[in-house]
Each structure stands twice: as C-alpha cells, then as structure tokens.
C-alpha cells in the first residue's frame, strides 16, 4: 500500500502503454484501418484505370493513384475520433481519468499512439496504392517512379495527410465527446471545399484542409491549389490548433 516514488518517464510510459493496449483491444481500430486500406486501393485502381482511357487536361500520375484518399481520410478521421468518443459514450472515460488524473497526459498518449499508428498505416496505404496505381498506368506509359521529382514527397505526403486527419479526428472527438457529433464535424472538414467553391474569398481556399492535403499529395503544382509546402504548413497548423483546443478543454470539464 505504500507507494514508491515514480519518475515522470515511468508514468509517461505507463500511460502510453495503456493507451496502446486500448487501441489494440477494440475491433473498431482494425475495422477503420481496413476500410481505409480497401477503400483507397479500390478508388485508386478505378481512377487510374479511367485515366488511361480518358485523358484530362491536368494529369498527375501520383495524385490520380492516391485519389482514394477521399475515402481513407474519412476513415482515419473517424478512427481518431473513436479513440476517445467510445470512452465517453461507454463511460470508460471516468475509469480512464480516475486511473490517470493527469488528463493532458492521457490526451498526449492517445495522440501519440493513434497518430503513430495512423502514420504507419497511412504510409503503407500511400505507398501501396501508389505502386498499385503506377502498375496500372504503366500499360499506357503514364506511370512515374519514386525517383522522379516531387514523387516521393507527394506519396509520403499522402501518409502524412492521413496522420493529420487521425489527430484532428481525435481532437474533435475530445472536444465534442460524442461519436456522431465528431463524425459530423469530420464530415464538415470533408465537404468544406464545396462551401469554399461557392463564393468565399480565394485566400480561404488555401486554408481548407482537404485542398491542402491535395496539394501535399500532388507531384505537380495544380492551378488554384496552394503549393505543396504551404499544404504541409496548413496540415500542420490544423493538427497543432486542434491539439491546443483539445488540451485546453480536457481539463476544464467534469468527466
């Protein structure tokens, strides 16, 4: 019953390990990530097959092979949100906060494990669908390789974008505390470009997450889109801002 002095590192490791265990022990983790893998591959294959027949004015062999990110970004956002909203809807959050009253440490650990898993799976998806797409395009000699300019950055950027979606999803879940509400908010990010297209000032376009993501995963500058480096910055700002707000609210509410 006596407690030995516990170092901050040990405590951080305990919380990280616990959150990792949580993530691994529910089916929704596997379901969401599998959905992302399958969805991205399917859309990518379809898009590349179509691109061979139908040659559009603008063509980017990388971007077209990664176009399934439309699906996976949602799955990743939901995956991030579920990491905390299921705790709120089941009441598990009270067990969690009673076990670790330092709530910011809980959020940090959740962000670390969901973020790292999302980054790993995101990169696997990005590189996997890229190679799948290029193989498809190769028959029409439209394919590119990783050594071509900006290709590696665009493919890796797609994985990074998915990581950002998971972190933003987790933060929205932390702020909103309901699964349905968080998914709706992620949906807003998803359909945000549609609003921007209809009559918002042009500079706003650069701050739209989905457009930033598109810029990040394109190997050629696209007219009307932010540059790739601006895209990375916008994605980063979203993740940092979301984490800041989530960190702020998490200690200020009764569990």
């Amino acid at each position, binding site marked *: 019953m006596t407690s030995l002095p516990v170092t901050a590192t040990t405590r951080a490791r305990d919380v990280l390990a616990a959150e990792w*265990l949580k993530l691994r022990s529910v089916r929704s983790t596997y379901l969401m990530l599998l959905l992302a893998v399958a969805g991205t591959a399917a859309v990518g294959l379809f898009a590349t097959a179509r691109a061979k027949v139908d040659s559009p004015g603008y063509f980017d062999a990388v971007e077209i092979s990664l176009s399934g990110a439309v699906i996976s970004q949602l799955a990743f956002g939901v995956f991030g949100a579920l990491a905390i909203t299921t705790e709120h809807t089941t009441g598990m959050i009270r*067990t*969690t906060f009673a*076990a670790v*009253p330092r709530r910011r440490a809980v959020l940090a650990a959740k962000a670390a494990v969901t973020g790292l898993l999302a980054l790993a799976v995101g990169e696997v998806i990005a590189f996997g669908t890229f190679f799948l797409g290029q193989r498809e395009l190769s028959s029409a000699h439209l394919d590119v390789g990783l050594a071509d300019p900006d290709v590696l950055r665009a493919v890796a950027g797609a994985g990074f974008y998915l990581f950002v979606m998971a972190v933003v999803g987790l933060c929205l879940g932390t702020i909103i505390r309901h699964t349905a509400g968080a998914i709706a908010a992620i949906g807003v990010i998803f359909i945000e470009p549609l609003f921007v297209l209809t009559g918002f000032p042009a500079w706003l376009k650069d701050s739209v997450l989905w457009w930033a993501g598109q810029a990040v995963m394109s190997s050629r500058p696209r007219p009307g889109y932010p540059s790739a480096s601006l895209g990375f910055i916008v994605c980063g700002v979203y993740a940092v801002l979301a984490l800041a707000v989530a960190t702020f609210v998490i200690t200020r509410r*009764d569990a």
Partner: protein
Amino acid sequence: MIEVRELTKRYGGKPAVDDLSFQVRPGHVTGFVGPNGAGKSTTMRVILGLDAPASGEALVNGHRYAALPRPLRQIGALLDANAAHGGRSARDHLRCVARSNGIGVRRVDQVADLVGIGAVARQRVGRFSVGMRQRLGIAAALLGDPGTLMFDEPLNGPDLDGIRWVRGLFKALAAEGRTVLVSSHLMSEMALTADHLIVIGRGRLIADVRTEEFVRSSPRADVLVRSPRGDDLARLLTDRRAVVVAEPDGGLAVSGLDAGAIGRLAADHGIPVHELATRNASLEEAYLELTGDSVDYRAGTTGEDS
C-alpha cells in the same frame, strides 16, 4: 482515509453538494446514505477528481486526487459498473486500467479470479450481465491493492448471492485495515453492511454516527397487543392516556405505555393477553424521518392526512 472538507459542488447554480465535511476512517465499512439525488455520487466523483468542486476539497490519504502519482495503488473505486468499453474483453479492460498504473498482468488475473470472473474474462464486456459487470468494476477497483476503496450503490443490481458476496468482501477489506466507503439509498441495506454511517440529504450532512448508535436511537414506535377481550383492554388503556389504534387484523397498536405497564394492567384486570410485543420503528422509517425534509422529489401524498 478519505477527508471531505467544506465541499460544495453546483450544477447550473443549484448545489448538489453543500458545504459537506466528513472523514472516512480505516478499518470500518462506512455507509454513505441518502435519498437519490442527495449528492452521494457527486461527492464520490469529486473525491476521484472527475468533477471539480466549486469550493472546498476532498483528500485521499491527505492528498488531492490529482496529486496521486499512481492513484489506483491508493484508492480504488467502482462508480458505474457500465464504465467499460463493451467491445473489449474483460481481461483486456483490466489490463488497460492496470497498465496505466504500472500494475502487471499477474495481478489482473488474480483480481479476475478473486471476483469470480476469471473463467469468462476473455469474453467481451458487452455480453456481461449487470452482476458480472459489477464484479468487473470491483476487480478494477482492487487492481492496485489500495488502502481505500469506494463503491457507489454496489448493492443495487446484483442478485441475492451477489449481495451476500459483496457484503462479505467489504467486511473482509475493512478487517484488513482498509478504508471502505459504500453508498446506498437504502438504510436497511446499509445497517447490515456498514459499521459507521454518513447520512446526507440535499447535499448536506445529516448524521455521522456509528450504525449501532443509529439503530439504538431509532424511535421506539409502539407496542402490539393481542387479546380476545381487546375492547375491554383498549378502554382500560385509553383511561391511562395511552393512544390505542385498532389494527385491521384485530391487534391493538398502543403508544404511550410500555409493554410492562400494559402487561401488568391486563393481569390486574384478568384480561388474557396472547401477544405483547414492542415494535421498533423500522430503520428505514427512522431514516426517512431524518431525511424527510431533504428529499427533493417526492410523490404527492394522496388520501388521508396522517
């Protein structure tokens, strides 16, 4: 050891806990009793650092909860048996909770066996019955082998066997020198379970007494007399200023005279008595009387005035 000091917690301006102070000491089972909505759960949530108080504080072993480095090793609590992810297996649930406080898997299996869910620990929590979830919650509370334990309405839900087991567990934990706080809205239940009672109503402390003392001080209500010549006896009793109420089954409920005086009176007049019994007001009635003014929601009284 739990210490609550001048604790106030408001929800939307309305105080749920109002300047509440008490201590829970080791070695006893302490009952935390009050009507529904009295503030028991709120107090427990504040003790666990889940809710922030408007003023005052709650200390566990002299520290605020948030300052405990590995809280589960000092205090374990079951607030809500449903506070687990239904899709996770019971064992995984316990492992997650244990890991966050640096507690190993061996202890997880140990507590699962201890509460009797060892055999089903690999099943998903969503399939568990209310009673099994409660055992899972108790297992989680015991994980860190803490010196202080807190259970919110643990007797509300399990079947009779479960209730008996839980009671035995509380007594055993207290006998080991631990501090055990158990809440309930039923006094009769707590009288059987707790050595000490903290009674609250509308967020305020009403009583902080030993259970024995509470039972002893419960008002003695009346004496039940049964006699084949009940009418004659009733007349004699009312002559002696006793209040006599005829019961539907023919007995007489007498107040104002004790059983000895009634027995002597009957003997002096040669009236046979078949039954003569002092009736204590039930504990529940004493408790209701005590908390009567502090119930927020009460069904409207119908029919006769009392």
